[in-house]
């Protein structure tokens, strides 16, 4: 059985390498989506115009470190042709294995002190031992301390002719301008969806991974412009299943089914609160990821908005005609103002849900809040209504329905009783007001009014009480069961006569006036009598 043992031993030592590492680009040709950078570097190498310091910046997983390694290989390659490394010579292989004596790959985040930079400066002056250049690749260079950066400035400006620095970072903003001005700066771009998809397809074919077209699309979308993210996802998908389909992938990514998003969006757009809530309840009962759901919802509403304002949304959204048709149906009922409002509310909600202790409560409160947007009328339609001369403004009755609880109706006819209850009730809400009310005494109770009066000098309190009339009237309504107003009379001894305030009060008590105030949410400023 020696063969079997050998096999087992091999299995044991052969550690599996993730796709993202296995498929690291080995030449400029392999770099996906960074053609401008690759071309510039290649031309520079071919015409032997090599700068002494490069800075590669861009988002995660777009090829910065890989490019740095390719560049290092190309610089030291023994048989480079037209700027590309051969990948086979001694130097190239040494760099691939990380064993080259002339290429130093330094983790800037771990060696970020001045001491580290000083040590580096010490080694800079020695000539390369094998290749043509001594190359220093500093990854995550934004983590160097300020003094470390400054210690590097002199060397970076005029290094010995055999030295090349390559910096790579995701955050070029954190790099001092004095460093930036000494480097050739290359910005790496996010990789487009189509390019990621193409590369994934290539790798899947080479690795003999069976994957459907839809799943490929989904991965390239979820990767969000990063090749490494895409490959990580692909890797995970293939360790999960043999045949990668959209359904499997949704489960893996924790994405909700498309129908759920569509259904929820429809409910939101029609303002159907009970259905929205039961959908959320159902999702929670199943243990779905509500944060992910909110994120998807934001995107869906963005898509609806895009469909609403563009003529050819297919080009913008990378969607099939069928999906666009579905979006268009949803969009047809809503105005663009409404969609924008909903979208901004959702965006805010997404942030809140992300940090919430229990996403369900936050999401539900947010969705309820969004149902108010539905009740709003756009300025356009208001203008239209105003423009229709003679046509009475049609009231838009899409307000959120509130189920008012029928108030209990204790039929209390005695004024003292009502007065006592009123004070108690007000006390629970506004202690200060209650204290003031206690100074007054009830005088008269009619079907619609409760009249009270103050003794002598306490009339100053009347103004305060009037300003709180709404609180009192609400309380009165709850006690008596019908609308009952509080009227403050002056007790004998007080100066009678219709002063301005009195008139104001009377006018204000007029139902028509109050209705007008309510509709325009205005306030009473001046009263002019019609002589």
């Amino acid at each position, binding site marked *: 059985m020696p063969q079997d043992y050998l*096999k087992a031993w091999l299995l044991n030592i052969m550690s599996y390498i993730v796709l993202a*590492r296995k498929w690291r680009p080995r030449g400029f040709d392999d770099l996906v989506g960074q053609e401008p950078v690759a071309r510039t570097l290649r031309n520079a190498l071919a015409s032997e115009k090599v700068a002494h310091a490069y800075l590669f910046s861009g988002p995660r*997983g777009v090829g910065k470190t890989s490019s740095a390694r390719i560049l290092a290989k190309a610089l030291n390659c023994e048989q480079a042709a037209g700027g590309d490394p051969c990948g086979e010579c001694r130097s190239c292989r040494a760099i691939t294995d990380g064993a080259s004596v002339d290429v130093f790959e330094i983790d800037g985040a771990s060696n970020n002190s001045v001491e580290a930079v000083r040590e580096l400066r010490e080694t800079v002056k020695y000539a390369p031992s094998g290749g043509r250049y001594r190359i220093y690749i500093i990854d995550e260079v934004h983590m160097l301390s300020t003094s470390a950066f400054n210690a590097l400035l002199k060397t970076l400006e005029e290094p010995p002719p055999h030295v090349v620095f390559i910096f790579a970072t995701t955050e070029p903003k954190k790099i001092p301008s004095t460093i930036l001005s000494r480097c050739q700066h290359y910005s790496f771009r996010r990789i487009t969806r189509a390019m990621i998809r193409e590369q994934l397809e290539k790798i899947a074919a080479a690795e003999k991974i069976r994957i459907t077209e839809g799943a490929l699309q989904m991965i390239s979308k979820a990767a969000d412009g990063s090749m490494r993210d895409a490959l990580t996802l692909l890797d*995970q998908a293939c360790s999960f299943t043999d045949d990668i389909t959209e359904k499997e992938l949704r489960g893996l990514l924790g994405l909700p089914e498309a129908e759920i998003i569509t259904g929820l969006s429809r409910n939101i757009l029609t303002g159907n609160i009970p259905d929205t809530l039961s959908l959320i309840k159902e999702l929670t009962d199943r243990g779905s990821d509500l944060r992910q759901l909110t994120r998807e919802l934001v995107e869906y509403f963005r898509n609806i908005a895009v469909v609403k304002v563009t003529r050819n949304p297919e080009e913008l959204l990378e969607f099939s005609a069928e999906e666009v048709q579905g979006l268009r149906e949803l969009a047809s009922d809503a105005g663009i103002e409404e969609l924008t409002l909903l979208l901004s509310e959702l965006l805010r909600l997404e942030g809140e849900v992300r940090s919430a202790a229990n996403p369900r409560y936050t999401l539900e409160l947010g969705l*309820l809040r969004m149902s108010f947007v539905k009740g709003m009328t756009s300025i356009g339609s208001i203008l239209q209504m105003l423009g229709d001369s003679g046509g009475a403004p049609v009231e838009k009755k899409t307000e959120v329905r*509130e*189920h008012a609880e029928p108030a209990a109706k204790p039929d209390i006819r005695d004024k003292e009783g009502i007065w006592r209850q009123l004070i108690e009730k007000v006390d629970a*809400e506004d*202690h200060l007001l209650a204290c003031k009310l206690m100074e007054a005494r009830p005088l008269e109770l009619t079907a619609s009014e409760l009249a009270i009066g103050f003794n002598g000098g306490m009339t100053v309190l009347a103004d305060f009480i009037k300003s709180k009339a709404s609180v009192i009237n*609400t309380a009165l309504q709850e006690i008596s069961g019908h609308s009952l107003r509080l009227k403050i009379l002056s007790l004998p001894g007080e100066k009678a006569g219709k002063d301005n305030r009195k008139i104001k009060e009377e006018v204000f008590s007029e139902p028509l006036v109050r209705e007008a105030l309510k509709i325009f949410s205005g306030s009473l400023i001046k009263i002019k009598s019609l002589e």
Partner: protein
Amino acid sequence: MAFREIIGQEKAVNILKGCIRRNRIPHAMLFAGDEGIGKRLTALNFAKALNCRGTGGVDLFFADMKESGAPDAGDIDACDRCPSCTKTDRACHPDVFVIRPEGDGGQITVPAIRRLEESLSYKPFEGRWKVAIIDNADRLNQSASNAFLQTLEEPAPRSILILITSRPDVMLATIRSRCQRINFTPLPVNLMQELLKERLEKSDGGKSTLLSVLSGGRLGHALDESLIAQRDRSFEIFRKMLGRLEEDAWDDRDEMEKWFDWGEMWLRDIAVFKATARADFLINRDREHEIREICRGAALKDILKLARELYNIKRKLDFNLNRQLTFNYTAMLLKKMLGRRNN
């Protein structure tokens, strides 16, 4: 414990088993999901299964020699008996490292990461894999995160890094992109109910239902005995605020911070009841009467406005708000928004 005893995370466990079965074990993983749903447990059991020497475990060394070829998913689990498994259980396995935030700031710092990197650079002592579990990985501070990037991308052979977090969004994108993300979801309500019924035995079904909903599918929370008591206390404070109480009713800062989470729940119930008048949507169905009572005096718009205000206060709690003032302000808001009808 072994994989088979992990409850409600079949999806995640299946992915992990799949990795082992296909011998495609990624060097870096990110376990993301809410607090208290079993991420840490799964990570430890994954470590056990990887290094298990018992017959039940995956033995890559001999697996290939078996007649049947690769073991199927059902077989892959820790045996829970071999020395390797027991050592992992007792947290003294030389190849399993667990790092968690420590010190005053509750952060994971660069020295901790350096120590880990050093221990990972050696060959495994006795197991097949070195497993590093970084608990609460969102507490990696800025420099530690960056110092970790290179190791995370290309660690020493035969090492596996497992990052655990309940807040993946606050971590650096560069960290996230280097890990295979495995999502953990809250437990389905009916599963929780069954589990709780078993554990609570004597208590009634109503309690288990309430607990499973209250905990939001987080078993760790649901098993907390005091959850219902906490909820009751929060409601008591909520109602005190609506009354005339001026004195701060929170015992300490911690309670204050928690109260705002509870407050959100109560407002959610009140708002939902106001909008639909349906008791079956409520979380706290046993408090329907009180909720109905509060609903009567308030407009939906105000309730929602209040919810947002509370959210704003909650976010400012980190800035060391005065407790008494916060209480008074919140109570005032509550009275103002919930105390009036349609105004």
